């Protein structure tokens, strides 16, 4: 550990720093696969960092490092003491510390992705940690999930419904999911993906890219 001498904290309003994107959702819905896809697709054009929140030690971080989609040193893992949602919502200190460590080491960054540990439908990111958030569901959890709602489904800036390739096998009706999601989400967007069939996750990456562009215009480093 020891002393870090470059102790610069960013302004709470976010000027002069990267967009922070939270990726949350239930266990097994494809969060880590989506993060890997975003790194693969956006990595050539953007300076990225990733923070993972694992339930057990550093499994997701290790998966991403092995996937070779990003310099392994740009991936940090946070341990969450049995409570993945606490670390992204109620007590975000360890995640903020990891995000700022990445910005100190590799900054200026364009985008820092914070992947939550797999949790339930009530998990959302604090606005003190994530500027934008994606909630990831998969069709094999059943096509009733969007109707059940919950803060992740209803309030996330983007809802991703993954594993559409499995829909025929589990009897999930994508039309029902789309209609139910629109009913609880209003104007907020929903994207259907099959990261297995389309490893670039092009539509999601394009949405994220637009968010980064908009953020950089409104949160440029103030002239000093």
């Amino acid at each position, binding site marked *: *550990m*020891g*002393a*870090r*001498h470059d*102790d610069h*904290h960013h302004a*709470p309003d976010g000027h002069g720093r990267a967009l922070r994107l939270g990726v949350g959702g239930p266990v097994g819905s494809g969060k880590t696969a989506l993060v890997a896809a975003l790194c693969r697709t956006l990595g050539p054009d953007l300076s990225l960092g990733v923070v993972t929140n694992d*339930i*057990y*030690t550093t499994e997701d971080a290790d998966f991403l490092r092995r996937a070779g989609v990003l310099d392994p040193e740009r991936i940090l893992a*946070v*341990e*969450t*003491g*049995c*409570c993945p949602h*606490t*670390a992204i919502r*109620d*007590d*975000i*200190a*360890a995640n*903020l*510390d990891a995000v700022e460590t990445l910005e100190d080491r590799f900054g200026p960054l364009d985008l820092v992705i914070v992947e939550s540990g797999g949790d339930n439908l009530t998990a959302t990111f604090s606005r003190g940690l994530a500027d934008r958030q994606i909630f990831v569901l998969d069709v094999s959890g059943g096509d009733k999930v969007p109707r059940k709602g919950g803060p992740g489904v209803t309030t996330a800036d983007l809802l991703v419904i993954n594993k559409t390739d499995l829909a025929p096998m589990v009897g999930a009706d994508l039309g029902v999911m789309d209609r139910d999601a629109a009913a609880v989400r209003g104007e907020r967007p929903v994207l259907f993906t099959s990261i297995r069939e389309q490893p670039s996750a092009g539509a999601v990456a394009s949405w994220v890219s637009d968010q980064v562009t908009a953020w950089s215009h409104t949160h440029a480093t103030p002239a000093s």
Partner: protein
Amino acid sequence: MLSPGLLLLADSRLPAGGHAHSGGAERVIAAGAVHDVPSLERFLRGRLHTAGVPAAALAAAARAAAVDESPGWELLDEEADARTASPAQRAASRTQGRLLLRVARRVWPAEALEELARRTPSPHHPVALGVAAYAAGATAGEAALAAAYHAVSGPATAAVRLLGLDPVAVHALLAALGPDLAAVAERAHPPGPHPPGSRPPGSWAELPACSAPALDLLAEQHARAEVRLFVS
């Protein structure tokens, strides 16, 4: 009157990363030595009277010194290092100290916290707690009490999560530790002739240095464990 700042500092909901640390509880539970409320009581009592004693003393010393313009935090940092044999425990203490300092600088802005951050960006937790107590308007005795409570409250919560213990039984256990908490805090900062806020007599080198080799070993085993839920 009790300082309201103390209540915030001692609250486990303070968003300073403490929820992810078990203070050795996860590893001692994995080893089977703590498995129910009576065995948890023995663990917490031992932890309070070993690791808790220097933590409380360091917190009180930091609170008392925070009134100075240049307290020489590097020296107190070395005293804390010297009292923390396990590298894993040092890392856990510095991580929690850095996160607490981050929170305190926003919640109770004060030059004393900025000076601490300049001198030791990752201070040991009890030192950060002592200076945060100063900024929050709490006394040295209160800082010591908060440090002593921190030594047992985190492991107690971790045990509730890991073993599914009755949370009311565990809180009754924490309540029963009350006299011990008060005794540890009083030893760290004896009520005495010194006016509130001033340094107690004696130098930092004379602060208590109780050690708990079993806690050191647990911390090292935990840092090397393949599977873990808590940072420490």
